[in-house]
């Protein structure tokens, strides 16, 4: 599914160079469940952004589903991102003036799906996350947990094979946080490849495969057999 080889990402800030990712190799199979942990500034978000095609590596190759992502144009990357990747963010990033329904609908709209086809899909997605009664509410009228669920519905509405979550519970209390993780895991059970960046030790341990990063490098990659 995902194959990174020799990935480096160097930011240049003035004269200084920040080596955010240092020779990273990573293979992720379809349907895997990974957690990525590590101290602040260790390059977790940078890695996720590269995987999500929002950023390009300074060097190294990235194959997504046997497509060489580094050879693609900006527009091709946008299309690939739309079809293959779902993003869940710490700060939800819902569009404030749109309703929950419209936020979930957005990727379908951008992809040019007919309104008649969009409606049942969005309704099904909202229904499965228990958000149907909130469909017409705007983000400010929703709780944090509900917002993140709307964001998850939006991230999965295009049925992407890969779901990337960057500290999805970072802004939630533990109850709604574990609720969100339950949803993500349920999606993983149904076949989605799930990568979750988290600072929460307990949440990280729930993943079958755990990656630990320090200073832009993967220092630990353990496969966990469920205890």
């Amino acid at each position, binding site marked *: 599914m995902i194959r990174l080889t020799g990935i480096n990402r160097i930011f240049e800030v003035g004269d200084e160079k920040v080596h955010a990712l240092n020779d990273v190799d990573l293979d992720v199979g379809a349907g895997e469940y990974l957690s990525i942990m590590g101290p602040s500034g260790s390059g977790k978000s940078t890695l996720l952004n590269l995987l999500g095609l929002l950023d390009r590596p300074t060097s190294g190759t990235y194959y997504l589903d046997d497509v060489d992502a580094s050879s693609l144009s900006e*527009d091709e990357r946008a299309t690939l*991102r*739309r079809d293959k990747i779902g*993003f869940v*963010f710490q700060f939800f990033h819902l569009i404030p*003036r749109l309703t929950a329904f419209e936020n979930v609908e957005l*990727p379908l709209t*951008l992809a*040019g799906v007919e309104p008649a086809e969009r409606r049942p899909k969005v309704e099904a997605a909202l229904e499965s996350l228990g958000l149907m009664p909130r469909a017409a509410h705007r983000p400010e009228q929703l709780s944090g947990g509900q917002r993140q669920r709307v964001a998850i519905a939006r991230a999965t509405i295009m049925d992407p094979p890969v779901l990337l979550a960057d500290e999805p519970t970072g802004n939630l209390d533990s109850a709604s946080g574990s609720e969100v993780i339950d949803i993500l895991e349920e999606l993983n059970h149904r076949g989605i490849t799930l990568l979750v960046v988290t600072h929460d030790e307990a949440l990280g341990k729930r993943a079958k495969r755990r990656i630990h990063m320090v200073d832009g490098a993967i220092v630990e990659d353990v496969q966990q057999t469920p205890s």
Partner: protein
Amino acid sequence: MSPEDTLRFGYRSLTGYPTRTLLMLLAMSIGVTAVVLLTSLGEGARQYVLNQFSALGSNMVIVLPGRSETTGAAPPMVGATARDLTLEDALALYRSSAVRHVAPLIVGTANVSYAGLSREVMILGSTAEMQAVRELEMAQGRFLPPGEAERASNVVVLGAKVKREIFGNATALGEWVRIEDRRYRVIGVLSDKGQSLGAEISDTVFIPVASAQQLFNTEGLFRILVQARARESIPRAVEAAREIIRERHDGKDDITVITQDAVLETFDRILTALTLAVAGIAAISLGVAGVLIMNVMLVAVSQRTTEIGLLKAVGASGAQIMRLFLTEAAMLSLLGAALGIVLAYVGIWILGQMFPAFPLSPPNWALGAAVGISLVTGLLFGVMPARRAARLDPVQALSRR
């Protein structure tokens, strides 16, 4: 993304930030209002002048003694040596089939007195045809009697103002007024209304042309007013007038023929140029509106940085984001233009109530131009912010809250 969805998205972001949207609409609509209103005023002035001229009498050709170069810069000096235009010259013009009426005209000033009241008045000597040529309306009585132009009968037709000033509210018809040392019987009073450049006519009196010749002791006519049979026959009437007079003046081309069209055209050109100039000035305010739109769109882009980042994260291409922002700018421009046109019509209506005589309506080209210019400025000034949005780095955009 389908065009309907693009429009809906634009609509949602316009209604999502009402203050910003209203401000931009206001700026755009003021610009459009200025363009439409000012061109209406210019066009109104043009129409007004044209109306005034056509009220002078329709299909009119004016024959003046003396040759003048209408295009030359030097004053027409030859006029002094030219032969007079006589009453016979005037009547000879009837030989042309293009001519319907001929009205000779002698102009002079003289003292008009009645019952001890005396006034210096402009005296117009003419014939019955003058009524048709200048489309004069009578308030009372009748105009100069038709018949032989050479007969010097002692009758007078008073202009409305002259009548008022000499007779007040008393009856004038049938009374005898004195012009210099002769007595004339009042047979008619001109109406005040329906007259062009009207003040001038109401301040005059008409007497038969032969009487005027005696009064001012002259054979020569001031000018001859000729009414052509139709608009199409004006050129033929002009040609005929030249030929007939040349023949009668021993082959000398010593008259000047003016058509109303030529005068009208000059005014038309001047006033059209004026309208365009005024419209151009108003268009500057549209440019200002454009700059404002650019500024507000730039603010919108930085306000909506995370939104743009998010759009990219869910698969929007740079081109798509550019299209979304340009659509927003275009919608603002068009809405602003529509609002501006409504405002302009309200303004025109109000002006119409205040000055009912002044014809006010925006020319079609001005409406089109106003909408076109506002759309172009909106898009032009919308491109820069839209490009900035399209190029935004999504990682940076999303790293902020």
